[in-house]
C-alpha cells in the first residue's frame, strides 16, 4: 500500500475505497446476518399468513356446520339425501334442508357453461398457438384478456337483458330466470381462462416435436391432433379443471339471471338456484344470526368447499398421471 506514490489524489481515493470495501463485510457481518434473518422471517410470515387464512376459514366452516347439524330440524341424512331446499321460516309447512336442491342447480349451470367454454376455449387456443399468423395472434390475445376483465355483474345483466330474451325468442319455453342463460354467461366468463391456459400449455410443447411430426409427412392437423395436444394434455386438463372450479364458485351471474327457485331439475329452461346464488340472496336479506337458516349458509358453503377441494385433488392426480417431460 505504501508503494503508491504520495500526493496522487486519484490513487489515494481509490486506495481508500478498496480498503473500505475490504473492511465492509467484516464490520457488518452481524448486521447482514440480522437482515437475512428478518427477510427470512417476513417471508415465512407471508407463507404462514395464507396458511392461517385457509385454516381459519376451514375451521369456521366446520364449526358452524356442526352447529347447523345440532338443530333438531335437520339431520345429516335429510341434508345429503333430499333435494327439497326451503330453509325459510314461513315458506311451506316445514323447513326443508335437502342440499341436492342447490347442488343440482350448481351442476346444471356448470355443465351448460362448460359445454360452451371448454370446446370453444380449446379450439381457440389451438388456433392461436398453431394456426394463427403472428399478427392475428397479437391482436386476438389482448381482446381475450379484456373479456376476462369484465366485472361479473355486467355478465349477469347481459344474461338477463340480452341472452334470456334471445333464448325466449328462439324457444317459448324459457322462463325469465333460467339456468341456460346464466350457464351461457358463465361459459363466456370462463372461456378466456380456458383459452389462455390451454394456449400456454400448447406453446410449451417443444418445436422439435412439431418438426418431427412434419418430418414424418404429417399435415398440420395431424401434428396438432396426434402429437401436440396429447403432449400438452396435462396443462389442458388443468385449464379445464380451473374453469370448472371457477364456474362452480361464480356468484353474481347466477344470482342475477338463474332465479331463486331451488329445485332438482334437468330442464335447462327452468328457474333454479345454485349454492352460491342461495348464499348471496340469504346474506343480502337480514336473517337472524342465531336461527337455522343462518347456519344453513355454512353447511352449503362447506359442501361447496368440499366440491372444489375434490376438483383440485383430481386436478393434481391428473397432472401427475399425464405429465410428459421433454427435457
Amino acid at each position, binding site marked *: 500500500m505504501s508503494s503508491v506514490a504520495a500526493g496522487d489524489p486519484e490513487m489515494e481515493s481509490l486506495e481508500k475505497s478498496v480498503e473500505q470495501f475490504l473492511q465492509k463485510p467484516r464490520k457488518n457481518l452481524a448486521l447482514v446476518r440480522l437482515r437475512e434473518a428478518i427477510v427470512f422471517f417476513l417471508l415465512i410470515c407471508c407463507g404462514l399468513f395464507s396458511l392461517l387464512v385457509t385454516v381459519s376459514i376451514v375451521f369456521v366452516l366446520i364449526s358452524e356446520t356442526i352447529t347447523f347439524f345440532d338443530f333438531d330440524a335437520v339431520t345429516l341424512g335429510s341434508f345429503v339425501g333430499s333435494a*327439497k331446499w*326451503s330453509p*325459510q*321460516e*314461513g*315458506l*311451506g*309447512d316445514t323447513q*326443508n334442508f335437502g342440499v341436492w336442491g342447490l347442488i343440482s342447480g350448481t351442476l346444471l349451470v356448470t355443465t351448460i357453461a362448460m359445454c360452451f367454454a371448454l370446446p370453444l376455449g380449446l379450439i381457440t387456443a389451438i388456433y392461436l398457438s398453431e394456426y394463427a399468423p403472428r399478427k392475428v395472434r397479437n391482436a386476438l390475445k389482448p381482446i381475450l384478456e379484456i373479456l376476462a376483465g369484465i366485472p361479473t355483474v355486467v355478465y349477469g345483466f347481459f344474461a*338477463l337483458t340480452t341472452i*334470456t330474451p334471445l333464448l*325466449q325468442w328462439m324457444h317459448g319455453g324459457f*322462463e*325469465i*330466470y333460467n339456468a341456460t342463460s346464466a350457464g351461457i354467461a358463465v361459459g363466456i366468463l370462463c372461456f378466456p381462462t380456458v383459452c389462455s391456459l390451454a394456449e400456454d400449455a400448447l406453446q410449451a410443447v417443444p418445436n422439435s416435436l412439431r418438426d418431427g411430426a412434419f418430418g414424418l409427412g404429417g399435415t398440420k392437423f395431424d401434428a396438432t391432433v396426434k402429437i401436440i395436444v396429447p403432449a400438452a394434455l396435462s396443462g389442458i386438463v388443468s385449464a379445464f379443471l380451473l374453469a370448472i372450479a371457477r364456474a362452480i364458485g361464480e356468484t353474481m351471474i347466477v344470482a342475477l339471471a338463474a*332465479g*331463486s*327457485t331451488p*329445485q332438482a331439475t334437468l330442464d335447462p329452461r327452468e*328457474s333454479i338456484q345454485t349454492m352460491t346464488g342461495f348464499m348471496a*340472496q340469504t*346474506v*343480502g*336479506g*337480514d*336473517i*337472524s344470526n342465531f336461527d337455522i337458516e343462518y347456519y344453513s349458509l355454512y353447511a352449503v358453503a362447506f359442501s361447496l368447499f368440499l366440491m372444489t377441494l375434490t376438483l383440485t385433488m383430481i386436478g393434481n392426480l391428473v397432472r401427475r398421471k399425464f405429465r410428459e417431460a421433454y427435457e
Partner: protein
Amino acid sequence: MMALRFAVLPALLLAGYSVAPAQNKQLRGEIEIDGSSTVYPISEAAAATFNKDFPNVTINVGVSGTGGGFKRFTVGGTDISDASRPIKDSEFKAAKEKGIQFYEVPVAYDGLTLVVHKENDWVDQLTVDEIKKIFTTAGNAKTWSQVREGWPNREIKIFAPGTDSGTFDYFKEVVAGKTGALRDDMSTSENDNVLVTGVSGSPAAIGFFGVAYYEANKDKLKAVPVVNPALSEPVSPTPTTIENGTYAPFSRPLFIYVNAKSFTRPEVRKFVAFYLQNAPDLAARTGYVALPKKVYEEVINRFRGRQTGTHYLTDEMEKRSGAVEEVYQAKNLVN
C-alpha cells in the same frame, strides 16, 4: 346487510318540491333509516325533498325489509325504522329490553297488489279462495286450470317478496292465516324489482308487492282486481278503493317508527316534522294513499305529549287490528 335501491320513481323525485325559499345550511347531522322496501319510496322521497331545504343533513335510507329494519332499530342502530306492518310483540320486547322508546307513526295506506303478465288474458279477477288455492300449501294449485275451470292448463309461476318483509307477513296472515303456510316452491326476493322483472317476463306468472311498485311499472304488468268478501264485487287497487277500505282484505297502513332518543336531536325533529307535514303529498307522489287527516293530527298529539309506544299490541301482547282511525287512539297506547 342493507341494499340501497335507486331505481324507484326517479321521475317523481326529480319533479321537485315547490317550497323552500331559502336553504338552511346551519342544520347538520346524520339520520339513519332502514326497513321495509314498501315504505322505502316514501322515506326516500321525504329525504330527497328534505335535503333540498337542508343540504347538510345526511339521510341514509336502507332496504332490509321490515323485520331486518326492526332488528337494527330495537338495538338502537337506526333513528327511524320503515315498517309495512305494526311492530311485533317479539320486537317490542327486544326494544324494551334495550331501553329503546319509540313513537309509532302511520304515514300512508298501501294496497298490496297482485300482478300478472301484461298479456295474461284469462285472469280477470280473483276471489280470496282462489288466491288461497294459488299461494298456500293447502291449496297448492300447480296450474291455472286448477284455480278456476276454463283457465288454461299452464303452470303457475309465483314471485313473492322475501320472508323477512312486512309485505310477506301481511299477505301470509291474510291468505294463510296464523297456522297456515305459503308454498315453498315460489321464487322469493327481498328486491321488488326482481319480482317486477320476473312477472313481466313470464306469461303465466303471478306475484304481489306494494301498489307503488305496480304504479311505477304499470306498462309492464297487469293488476288483478280482488273480490271484496263483504261486497262480493271485484275491486281494483286505486287511491279511492284503498282509502275507503273497499279494496279488502289487502289494504293496510304503512308506518315509520321514530326512536324517542333520536327525536331529541334537532335534525331528526325537523325531518320527522317535515315528513309528517308532507306525508299526504309524499304518499300520493309515490303511488300510495294518504291517511285521513284525523290520523295525522293524532300523530302530532303523540309527539306533543311525548307518548311513546305502540297501538297495535294489547297489554297482554296480543295483536290489535282494525281500521287505522280506530286502532290509533291514545287509549290503545301500550309502552
